[in-house]
């Protein structure tokens, strides 16, 4: 049962899936770290991004990896506009209201997609989707390996932006001390929107990396968002490193639970971690005290 012939590929696969989870969680944790809100629309926005990537290929013939170049700025703009013109003004600065507004947006996006495209599950047929790399100990699908590497690149880029650009410094300043940042002339509403935009842009990248080997339907984001919540809580709300480590960890846990418990009960493993972390250590592994 614990034979390495099964175990090593399972762990490896878990790591590859986990990388994409990490990217989704990265967007969520970034938004939480700066705005201190949980974005309940994250999953629905991921679903929207998956549909966008799907139709970019179906209608425009764009390869998903090329589509990422166009969709990432598009989703950045979408996220920016959502925070600046909908969530920010609607919430009147109350955290409870933000919860409700993002939940409302999630319900609207998810069901508008359901209305437009029905509950059908769609997949792309790409020539390279089934190509595999032989790593000696295991076979790895090329698109998934590519996704893993891309996530590392995106995480690095994000870190560079946050560390060295003026906007990045402003984001970190707002995250640490909102009032102080405002007093030093930082436009907080703008920074909030930029952060939300970055978080949403992460979803566009994640969607383009997922679509070659995954499927899309109006509810697909839900599966990811609860996993992303788990990762964010496990890694520590607002911690970028936590999101990466948590993502990989959860990927492996899911893969192993699926192996030993079967597909649907495998999900329970993730929820069990989620609830346990929330109850026992809400600040997570890398987070500051909640």
């Amino acid at each position: 049962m614990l034979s390495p012939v099964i175990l090593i590929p399972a762990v490896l696969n878990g790591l590859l899936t986990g990388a994409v989870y990490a990217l989704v969680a990265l967007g969520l944790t970034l938004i939480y770290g700066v705005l201190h809100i949980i974005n309940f629309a994250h999953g629905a926005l991921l679903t929207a991004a998956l549909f966008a990537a799907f139709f970019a290929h179906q209608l425009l013939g764009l390869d998903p990896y090329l589509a990422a170049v166009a969709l990432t700025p598009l989703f950045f703009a979408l996220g920016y506009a959502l925070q600046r013109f909908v969530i920010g003004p609607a919430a009147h600065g109350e955290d409870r209201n933000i919860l409700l507004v993002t939940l409302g947006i999630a319900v609207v996006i998810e069901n508008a997609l359901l209305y437009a495209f029905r509950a059908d599950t769609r997949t792309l047929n790409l020539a390279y989707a089934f190509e595999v790399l032989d790593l000696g100990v295991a076979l790895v699908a090329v698109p998934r390996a590519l996704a893993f590497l891309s996530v590392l690149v995106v995480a690095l880029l994000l870190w560079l932006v946050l560390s060295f650009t003026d906007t990045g410094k402003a984001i970190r300043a707002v995250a640490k001390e909102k009032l102080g940042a405002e007093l030093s002339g930082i436009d907080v509403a703008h920074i909030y929107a930029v952060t939300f935009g970055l978080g949403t842009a992460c979803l566009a990248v994640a969607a383009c990396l997922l679509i070659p080997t995954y499927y899309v339907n109006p509810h697909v984001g839900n599966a990811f968002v609860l996993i992303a919540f788990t990762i964010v809580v496990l890694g520590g709300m607002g911690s970028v490193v936590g999101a990466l480590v948590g993502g990989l960890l959860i990927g492996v846990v899911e893969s192993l639970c699926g192996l030993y418990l079967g597909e649907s009960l495998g999900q329970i493993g993730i929820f069990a971690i989620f609830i346990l972390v929330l109850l026992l250590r809400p600040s997570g592994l890398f987070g500051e005290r909640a």
Partner: protein
Amino acid sequence: MRQASIAHILLVVAALAIVPLLTASNVVLNFLIVALMIALVGQGWNVLGGYGGQYSFGHAAFFGTGAYVTAILQTRYGVNAWAAFALGIAGGALVGGAIGALAFRSGLRGSYFALVTLAFAEVLRIVASVVPITGAGVGILITLDLRAQAFQFQSRAPFFWIILALVAVSLVIVRLIEQSRFGAWLLAVRENEDAAKALGVDAARVKLAAMTISAAITAAAGGFYAQYFLFVDSGIAYGPWISIEALLAPIVGGIGTVLGPLIGALAVRTLGEITKLAIGDAPGLDLVVYGSMLVLVVAFAPQGIASLLAELRARLTRWRASAPERTNA
């Protein structure tokens, strides 16, 4: 609207109670039964969310438990339907108490509380879709037995009066809470938990009590659902739809008010029906409307419809009063 007295409540209930005498239309009655059921779910949410300030995103956990316990006890253990219904309420309260004890003992607040309630509801949904006792993916069909002692009726009118009576009881309970010392503690916790604690309020206990009452009320709606539709599955019982309806009704109607959930449920359901008539019945459309409503109400009428109407009236009087000045200018 600030304070609905018991007399107000009785008046509203009496006005609704005569509806089946005026119309035998199944469409009208069915609409009202479902709206009242949502009002009950929403009233449950309102106790914890409206008065206690703890926003749950997983009230499906209690609705579903009420529905499943009612259905399972009848179909698998031959328990009388009314007894099963009562035990369903108790089961919901138990689940609410258990989740509340875990969450509040760990000091979860705000977003964290919303997340953990959501997670518990999802765990229950997944478990219910797998284990045999809940009928797994197939669900449970309650055997048709059209007798009053089996909590089943030939016509819709008795169902209407039963759900109306349940709603009336919930209204009175909430009204009594509002006036009680417990209600004052609950409001204190909502407004400022740390300050409430400093004044000697046992915040965790007050929240736990609110959550148990909240869950019991919502579970009653779940049990009623099972008897009315005679079918329960994991997507209906523990699905996210009911968690959304639960918070939408009180927020739209007026959060933290006695009649808010009832007004909200009627408004939301009416809007849903109008959408169906206007655009046709399509999956997802009603929820698009609900979601937009949630955002719009939070944005423009944070105190709900009732206060919005009051505000409009006040503005109109002010506008009328200032009319002479305007003509002079």
